[in-house]
C-alpha cells in the first residue's frame, strides 16, 4: 500500500497533495502516513525534510477586507444583474429602448472613466516614487548600471542587484545576488551585501562573485573591506588582491590587474575549477542548458572560453579534457570519449 512513496525524495514527497494535507495538520491523513512510516522507518528523515519544506512555503497574506469585496460586488452588480433588470423594465415600456439603454450606459460610464483616469494617475505616481530599484538579468544578458551617485555597476548575466533609491544618497547600500564589477565614486561609505558576505569600500573598483556556495571578491583599485556572513571574518584587501571564501575562512591571493573581472571583456577564465561550475558559467552566458553525467561534473578544468560562438566556447572547454559535445536548440550534451 502507498508504495509509490517509497522511492520519492523530500522534494517529490513535498509535492504530493495528500502529504501536503498531512503536513498542514489534516487529521484525516494521520493514519495513512503513520502506518506508511511504520512500514518504512528508514524514511523518517525524508519525511522530516519534506515536512520542513511544506511548512516553509507559506506566503505572507495580503489582507482583503470584507468592505472591499462588497464594494467591488456593488460595481459588478450595477453592470450586470441590476442592468439586466433595467433593460427588462424599459423594454416593456418603450419600443425605442435599445438606444436609450446604450445612452444611459455611456452616462453611467462617466464616473468610472473619471475614476479610472484618477487611478491611473496615482498608479504612475506610485510607480515613479517607488523606493526599491532592482535590476534582474536573465542568462545571456549583461548590463551597465549608473547609480544615483554616478558610481557604475557592470552586472553579469543571471544576476540581481537591488537598492533603495530613496535612501541611497544617505547610505549607499546595494544587495547583490550573482556577479558584478563596481566602479565607486568617492564619497561616504559604500556597501555591497550578498548572502555569504559583504564588502565595504570608499572610492575604488572591485568585482564581487556570490553564487551558490562561492563568494569571491577581487579588488582592482583602492581598498575594500570584506566580511563573511558566517563566522564574521574580516579582511582588508588592496589593489590587485582577491579573497575567496573557503569553508568559513577568507583566503587571500594576489592577482594581476588584467585578471580581475575579465567577464566584462567576454572572457571566462578558470584554474582547476570543476566542470560543474565551468558549465554553470557557460549556461549563464549562453542561456543554454548543459547536460552531463555526474562523474563528469567533478573533472577539473584550467583554461578559458569566450563569448561569441557557442561552438568555439564548447571546443575550448571540451578539447583539453577530450570530451564530446552535441548542440541542440536550447541544450548542450557533454559526454566523454569512452562512452561513444
Amino acid at each position: 500500500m502507498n508504495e509509490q512513496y517509497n522511492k520519492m525524495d523530500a522534494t517529490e514527497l513535498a509535492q504530493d497533495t495528500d502529504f501536503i494535507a498531512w503536513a498542514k495538520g489534516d487529521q484525516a491523513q494521520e493514519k495513512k502516513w503513520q502506518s506508511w512510516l511504520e512500514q518504512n522507518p528508514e524514511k523518517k528523515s525524508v519525511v522530516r525534510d519534506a515536512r520542513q519544506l511544506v511548512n516553509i512555503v507559506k506566503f505572507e497574506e495580503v489582507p482583503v477586507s470584507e468592505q472591499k469585496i462588497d464594494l467591488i460586488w456593488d460595481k459588478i452588480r450595477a453592470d450586470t444583474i441590476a442592468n439586466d433588470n433595467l433593460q427588462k423594465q424599459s423594454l416593456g415600456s418603450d419600443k425605442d429602448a435599445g438606444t436609450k439603454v446604450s445612452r444611459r450606459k455611456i452616462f453611467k460610464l462617466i464616473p468610472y472613466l473619471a475614476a479610472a483616469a484618477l487611478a491611473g494617475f496615482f498608479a504612475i505616481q506610485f510607480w515613479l516614487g517607488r523606493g526599491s530599484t532592482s535590476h534582474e538579468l536573465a542568462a545571456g544578458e549583461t548590463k551597465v548600471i549608473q547609480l544615483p551617485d554616478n558610481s557604475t555597476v557592470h552586472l553579469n548575466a543571471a544576476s540581481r542587484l537591488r537598492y533603495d533609491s530613496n535612501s541611497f544618497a544617505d547610505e549607499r547600500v546595494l544587495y547583490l545576488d550573482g556577479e558584478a564589477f563596481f566602479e565607486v565614486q568617492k564619497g561616504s561609505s559604500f556597501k555591497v551585501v550578498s548572502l555569504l558576505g559583504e564588502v565595504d569600500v570608499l572610492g575604488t573598483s572591485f568585482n564581487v562573485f556570490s553564487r551558490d556556495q562561492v563568494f569571491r571578491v577581487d579588488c582592482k583599485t583602492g581598498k575594500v573591506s570584506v566580511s563573511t556572513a558566517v563566522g564574521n571574518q574580516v579582511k582588508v584587501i588592496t589593489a590587485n588582491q582577491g579573497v575567496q571564501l573557503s569553508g568559513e575562512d577568507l583566503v587571500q591571493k594576489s592577482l594581476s590587474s588584467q585578471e580581475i573581472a575579465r567577464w566584462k571583456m567576454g572572457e571566462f577564465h578558470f584554474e582547476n575549477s570543476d566542470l560543474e561550475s565551468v558549465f554553470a558559467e557557460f549556461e549563464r552566458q549562453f542561456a543554454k542548458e548543459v547536460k552531463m553525467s555526474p562523474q563528469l561534473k567533478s573533472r577539473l578544468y584550467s583554461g578559458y572560453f569566450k563569448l561569441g560562438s557557442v561552438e568555439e566556447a564548447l571546443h575550448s572547454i571540451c578539447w583539453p579534457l577530450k570530451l564530446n559535445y552535441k548542440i541542440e536548440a536550447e541544450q548542450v550534451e557533454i559526454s566523454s570519449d569512452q562512452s561513444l
Partner: protein
Amino acid sequence: MDDKGMQHKDLWKNIMQGDSQAFEALYRAHSASLLSYGYRMTPDKQLVEDSLQDLFVELWQKRSKLGEIKSVKAYLTVSLRRKIIKAIAKGVRKIGREEAEDYHFEAELAIEDLLIQKEVEGEQIEKLRLALQQLSSRQREALYLKYQMGMDYEEICESLDLNYQSARNLVSRGLAKLKNILLCLTAVFFDFFLSY
C-alpha cells in the same frame, strides 16, 4: 475533484442558465483569494480590483456562451492574470516606456515572521531575503498556486498557460532551491529549525 470543486461546478451550470444568486455565490467564494493573488502581480491595487470587476462583468455578459470547464478556480485565475498583464502593459506604455516589462510576482515567504519571533537580527534577515530571491518570479508564482491556493498540477498548468511537465519543473526547482537555502542557513539558524 474535491467537494468544493463540485459545488463550484454546480454554481457554474446555474450561472450559465442565468441564476444571479449563483453568480453572487461564485463571486463571494473566489474574490478574496483572487484579489490577494492579483495584488502580488503589481503594487497597483486599483488595477487589480478593476480587473476583477471586468472579469465578473464579462463572465455574466457571456454567460449563455460559457462552456463546461474543468476547474472554476483555474479558469478564474488565468482570466484575471491575463487581464492584469494587459492592464499593466497599457499603463507602462502610457508613461512612455519602450516596451511592456513582464510583471514581477511578489510574494514574501512567511518565514520572516518566524525569524523575527526567534529574534534573528536585521542583517541576517536581509541575507535570508536575498537567498529567497534566488527563486525566480515564475517559481514563486507556481509555489504560491500550489501551496497557498491549493491547486493541483492540472490547475496550475491552466492558470499559467504551461504544459504539465513545465509546471512540475517550476515547482520542483523552486522546492530544490528552498532546500538548498535551508541547508546553507542551517548553521546560522540551527536553533530555529530544531523547533520544527
